[in-house]
């Protein structure tokens, strides 16, 4: 992997958030991804989302598996804790960390290979467990880091760089998550910062597992004619497909009015990806309707984006496990160890 300077991130001056941090304080190490990689745009959006939410950096744990996408946890929030674990298993590591310390903000970054092939089982079960975390799935239809093999999200007929067409049906993480009972399901596009940031913020604030599937084109292996996950990121397109808005903390999340229902993004290679925005009257709390909407778009060859489903009343892992509100790491040892008298009493039962 060649190391190329990351694309410039625009700073709104040296504006400070309520914690007194500038956006720069939420940046990370220099990205080593290919110039123009969609994942870098996601990183930039995360920086802004975290800054806008005024997250205390050291209270954030960035979790990832393995892949170009998973590397990006190093490229934002350098003052936060990071854990680049093993391929496809970030969900379990995050489940454990969250079990131990429920009061941190967990941001998981994964790829379509990491999540939908080797880690499909872990993804399904972290959804079922409803671990409170933001789960970003940088979806490029390929294994970037191992040089362009098809991933499980590649569409039938989509071609690889070498020209061969994918014949196996794709796994759609959004449909999967809806089926498995996920309480926050969204999809966006790495080139659409205006849509992305509010969704990321909403996901971070969600009380449970928040999946955001982000179409994040791989400029090196999947950005050619015939690929269904290529893109051309122009400023205009970003504006045009903006949809969701996010009002932080304990206020109703609204899906604002939009000017168009569907946006066709013209790729620089001339192909198009069409993004279906959520409608004005779209009810993001109706799971069946969300499923139907995503399926209907899919059948028309469109990609439904936006905050697709939200249930703020689900029980997260700790509610299910009935754990104390204090993070388990902070429960004093004296409260955990029953002591010698209790042991002697217990011994009576073994006689």
């Amino acid at each position, binding site marked *: 992997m060649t190391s190329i300077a990351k694309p410039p991130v625009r700073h709104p001056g040296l504006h400070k958030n309520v914690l007194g941090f500038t956006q720069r304080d939420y940046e990370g190490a220099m990205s080593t991804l290919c110039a123009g990689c969609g994942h870098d745009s996601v990183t930039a959006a995360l920086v802004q989302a975290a800054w806008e939410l005024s997250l*205390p*950096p*050291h*209270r954030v*744990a960035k979790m990832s598996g393995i892949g170009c996408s998973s590397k990006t*946890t*190093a490229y934002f929030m*350098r*003052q*936060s*804790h*990071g*854990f*680049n*674990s*093993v391929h496809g*298993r970030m*969900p*379990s*590591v*995050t*489940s*454990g*960390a*969250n*079990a*131990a*310390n429920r*009061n*941190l903000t967990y941001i998981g970054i994964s790829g379509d290979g990491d999540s939908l092939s080797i880690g499909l*089982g*872990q993804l*399904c*079960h972290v959804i079922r*467990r409803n671990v409170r975390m933001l789960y970003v799935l940088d979806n490029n239809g390929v294994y970037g880091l191992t040089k362009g093999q098809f991933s499980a999200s590649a569409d039938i007929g989509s071609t690889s760089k070498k020209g061969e067409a994918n014949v196996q049906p794709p796994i759609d993480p959004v449909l999967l998550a809806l089926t498995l009972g996920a309480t926050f399901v969204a999809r966006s596009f790495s080139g659409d910062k205006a849509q992305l940031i509010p969704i990321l913020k909403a996901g971070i604030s969600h009380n449970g597992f928040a999946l955001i599937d982000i179409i994040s084109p791989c400029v090196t292996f999947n950005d050619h004619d015939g690929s269904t996950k290529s893109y051309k990121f122009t400023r205009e397109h970003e504006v045009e497909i903006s949809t969701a808005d996010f009002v932080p903390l304990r206020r109703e999340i609204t899906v604002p009015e939009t000017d168009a229902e569907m946006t066709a993004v013209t790729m620089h290679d001339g192909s198009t990806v069409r993004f279906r925005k959520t409608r004005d009257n779209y009810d993001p709390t109706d799971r069946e309707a969300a499923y139907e909407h995503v399926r209907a778009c899919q059948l028309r060859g469109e990609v439904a984006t936006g905050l697709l489903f939200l249930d703020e009343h689900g029980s997260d*892992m*700790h509610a299910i*496990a*009935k*754990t*104390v*509100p204090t993070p*388990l*790491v902070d*429960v004093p*040892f004296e*409260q*955990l*160890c*029953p*002591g*010698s008298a*209790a*042991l*002697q009493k*217990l*011994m009576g039962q*073994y*006689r």
Partner: protein
Amino acid sequence: MSGVNDFAFKMATVNGTGSASANSLLMQAIFRMGIPVTGKNLFPSNIQGLPTWYEIRVNADGWTARPEQVDLVVTLNPATYAKDVANVRPGGYLLYDSSWPLEADLIREGITIIGIPFGKMCVNAFERDRDRTLLRNIVYAGALAALFEIDMDVIHEMLTEKFSKKKSLLDANFTAIRLGYDYAKANFTCPLPFHLKRLDKTKDFIIIDGNSAAALGALYAGATVGAWYPITPSTSLMEAFTAFCKKFRVDKGTGLNNFCILQAEDELSAAGITIGAGWAGARAFTNTSGPGISLMQEFIGLAYYTEIPAVFFDVQRVGPSTGMPTRTQQADLMSLAYASHGDTKHIVLFPANPEECFYLSVEAFNLAERFQTPVFVASDLDIGMNDWMCQRLEWDDNYKPDRGKVLDATELEQVKKFSRYLDVDGDGIPARTLPGVHPNGAYFVRGSGHDKFGAYTEDSDAYQEVLDRLTRKFESAKKVVPAPEIHLQNSAHIGIVSLGGCHAAVMEAVHNLRERGIVADYMRIKAFPFDSPVKDFIDSHEVTFVVEQNRDAQLRALLAIELGVPRDNMTAVLNYGGMPLTSRIVVDAVAKHLEGVAV
């Protein structure tokens, strides 16, 4: 030779017929009579219909290993008649259900055959089919009580404790026990030549299985996160932990739990949860068996290289592959010691019995945090699932968990730039921080190549420097892990080395060898890595035997690799058919080898 308070008997039944409670009733009654006793449940990997045996050994001297032969067998499973009859020692007894004619398979010269019509008696005494099947076990327990002179008051006391809330069940059990007892008294000379006589030798003891004891250790060590995927023979460890947590860890005011137990989707996930929790600062563990250990390999390497504490209980069963899930072995030694790809070495502890499962479980959490590394407790099915008589467990209220070098907020306040893998103290152990504690403590964990500052690297020297420090850390663990237990006799030229669940049989073998004029020293290894006393022991004996329960002499291989002792200087004594080791196997192997060697 068998005699009063020195004999063994076994019940051959079909699994799923409810014999377990009758069998443990018998064992516990003997225990309450103050007589040392052990029980081994030899059961199939099946829910209903396959052969199962329960062996009880009574021994006033406290020998607890599995007997080679039994003095009496109760045969209630036609499918295993031939095998069961063959297992009775010459001059022993066979007790069969005479509701049906005596089958040819059961007839053998030189043993006494006793028939009791258990089936018919139950049909006459009980209405429901279920009772007729279940209570048949209590009827044979009653017969054995008469034949062995088990104190009926003790049995009554135990039944009363057990069924105090269910009067009808209590009455039915009383009836059943009496049926067997009275029949035996009326029809045979009771007691048999080998029988029981009250002693006072079990006062300070309990009867417990290793999995329960290990779970208690995790509870007392302050483990808060447990992750697992069901697998025999380790399942009962997490079940016990769950039960203990429900008893001792529920907040009285709120009813909320001071623990989080997650049944994962597989062992990979269980390992990931354990490591994630360890990273975040909890004492966390997972329990599994061979197939699970295979699945956890990649994660184990991650924890080793990123230096995250995690405790793994491996209750070993017979492998490779699915193998024999309900039989015992010690065949994971190599795969634990060097678990995962690349250069890895791990601390492994070898409990010999449930009592040590408790203490070594506590120790494992200390070691894991002190050395910031995965630690394995290598138990086995025999220890984990069978009832052993052990010393009462003790707890020192002055115990403080050794959390290792974890920088707290105050310390971090003073730190300008925290670097995760710097060997500041020269012992190979760097300081770690926990997420969320202080802004100065944030760092990036990566399983990919990293230098001593924790930064990504592909530089040979920087990579090697970290790897070499990990070696130093492992070296310093040698001095801290439990030392071997060494039993010396006067001027012995022979040394026996063993570990874990072989202990009871080897101790008895050493005793029996001495009676045959063969004097042997014995060293029981309690942990990997090995320190110099282990090598000294081997070096100081002309002939060394290494006794273990696997085919490939894995302990011997580890000793050769780690200590440089020539492999062929150590004679392997192996038992790997899945049944617990007996002293006879050891005695015979040693004696046979010595015939060809002048000592």
